[in-house]
């Protein structure tokens, strides 16, 4: 396994994979919390059309991907708050984009492998220049996320109270979706447009079941994502046949399932019959201690 690190493409794969795993985990917490999972599925599909268009015109696919993903994110942000209405609009946009992507592909006479890579990821084909672009873009995305962290959390949990406190709720929502579009574009290089959803949602959904604290959930999601990507790349490299994105999505599923079934009952133990004001209510679970780190 360590021998594999001698190859530059393996090093590039691991560095890029690590960067996007951490970023996707952090963004994923808010995607899950804001019930944007469907949007997180649609944005990369729309991005795919952009990437296919980029291939057609000879631009680096990730740029076309990002342009379309950003437009989709802003559009979804503008469509508004009602989840049902939003989902319908997103679905219509997404299927149109997929059709557009197919059109671009059929017009493209070149090497189909590049397009295949956009759909399913091409982590082992990442250049050094690509690693640098990914690193810089991820740093920008992470910086933005940190900058809006508290207002975003406030708007997520309690949008009306946040607005009353003077926060620009709609702007923050659009800003977050833009950061998410950037993160999705970067992650799609590793996972592909069709499977990037795994990295955005899988670790965060699992982390949500393992801790009660926002800061810890984000950290846990980032670490889980990191583990999935490393294991995925390792397994793919050793087997020589299994694709990385398949391995990552399989691991994410394999971890989420048992956690979903066993971890953390929805109520505090013994409090179901709790009467007024916590008469003898059992206190916080042992997992939590000390003062907040988030």
């Amino acid at each position, binding site marked *: 396994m360590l021998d594999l690190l001698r190859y530059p493409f393996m090093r590039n794969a691991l560095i890029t994979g690590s960067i996007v795993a951490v970023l996707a985990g952090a963004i994923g917490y808010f995607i899950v*919390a804001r019930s944007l999972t469907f949007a997180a599925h649609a944005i990369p599909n729309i991005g795919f059309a952009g990437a296919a268009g980029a291939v057609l015109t000879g631009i680096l696919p990730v740029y076309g991907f990002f342009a379309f993903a950003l437009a989709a994110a802003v559009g979804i942000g503008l469509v508004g708050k009602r989840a049902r209405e939003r989902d319908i609009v997103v679905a219509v946009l997404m299927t149109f984009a997929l059709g557009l992507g197919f059109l671009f592909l059929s017009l493209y006479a070149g090497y189909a492998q590049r397009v295949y890579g956009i759909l399913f990821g091409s982590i082992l084909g990442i250049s050094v220049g690509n690693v640098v672009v990914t690193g810089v873009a991820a740093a920008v995305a992470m910086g933005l996320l940190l900058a809006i962290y*508290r207002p975003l959390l406030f708007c997520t949990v*309690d949008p009306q109270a946040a607005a009353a406190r003077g926060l620009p709720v709609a702007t923050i929502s659009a800003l977050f979706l833009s950061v998410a579009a950037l993160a999705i574009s970067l992650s799609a290089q590793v996972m592909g447009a069709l499977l990037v959803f795994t990295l955005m949602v899988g670790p965060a959904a699992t982390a949500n079941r393992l801790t009660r604290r926002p800061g810890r959930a984000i950290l846990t999601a980032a670490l889980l994502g990191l583990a999935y990507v490393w294991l995925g790349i390792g397994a793919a490299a050793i087997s020589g046949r299994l694709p990385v994105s398949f391995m990552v999505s399989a691991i994410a599923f394999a971890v989420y399932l048992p956690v979903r079934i066993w971890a953390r009952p929805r109520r505090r133990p013994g409090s179901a019959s709790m009467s007024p004001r916590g008469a003898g209510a059992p206190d916080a679970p042992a997992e939590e201690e000390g003062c*907040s780190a988030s």
Partner: protein
Amino acid sequence: MQEETGCVAVLEKASVRLGGRLIQESMTFTVEEGEFLAVLGPNGAGKTTLLRLLLGLIEPSSGSVSVFGAPPRRGNSRIGYVPQFRDVDAGISIRARDIVRLGLDGHRWGPGLPSRKREAAIDEVLEEVGALDLAEASLGELSGGERQRVLVAQALLTNPRLLLLDEPLASLDLAREAEIVGLVARLRRTRKTAVLLVTHDVNPMLSEIDGVLFMANGRCAKGPIAEVVTSAALSGLYGSPVEVVEALGKLFVVGAPI
């Protein structure tokens, strides 16, 4: 408009239109320092709209509104606001104390640093609303009444002089209703905070409130229960015959929706 020191809010002929529809016409009343008012009225009468007006989230289409002697503005820390119960995703990892904390610094940029002083302030308000034992519980683990306590604690962190509570009793059982009313009554006594509590049922708080603000049919009436919640007064407000019946020490409005 007179700038009495004792006035928390003064409305003078304030009308509100939303999307071309007249919600309230010519509201004129004052909210005094430390006054506890129940805001009553049918759905769509403008109860939440009134709160949004005081918060500076919407503007009157005509007339004037002043809060603490100035026009309403968003982010006024002298107002504590608990919005109507929302369908937040209970699957999100967030503890009660994290939610309370948002009332203190949720509007600031950046992630924020750990602070003992802040945690102590959070413990203090949680204790005040009797929810200190819930501090480490996550949002999804809180019952409706527990959640209301935590949200009230969040609203208290800025030491507001006016509390706006939008249907805090919705979807609570009778015992939990009484608890929340008891909590609000205690807070307004100890903190001398004025309270506007939006509700569909005034009975749980009959002995605690100073008066009611009854909104219906684009108009409103403010005063003691004995003056406002009467057959004659409500018939005038609704513009149709309405009967107020007293039974078992409770008031029932017959002939009109509340």
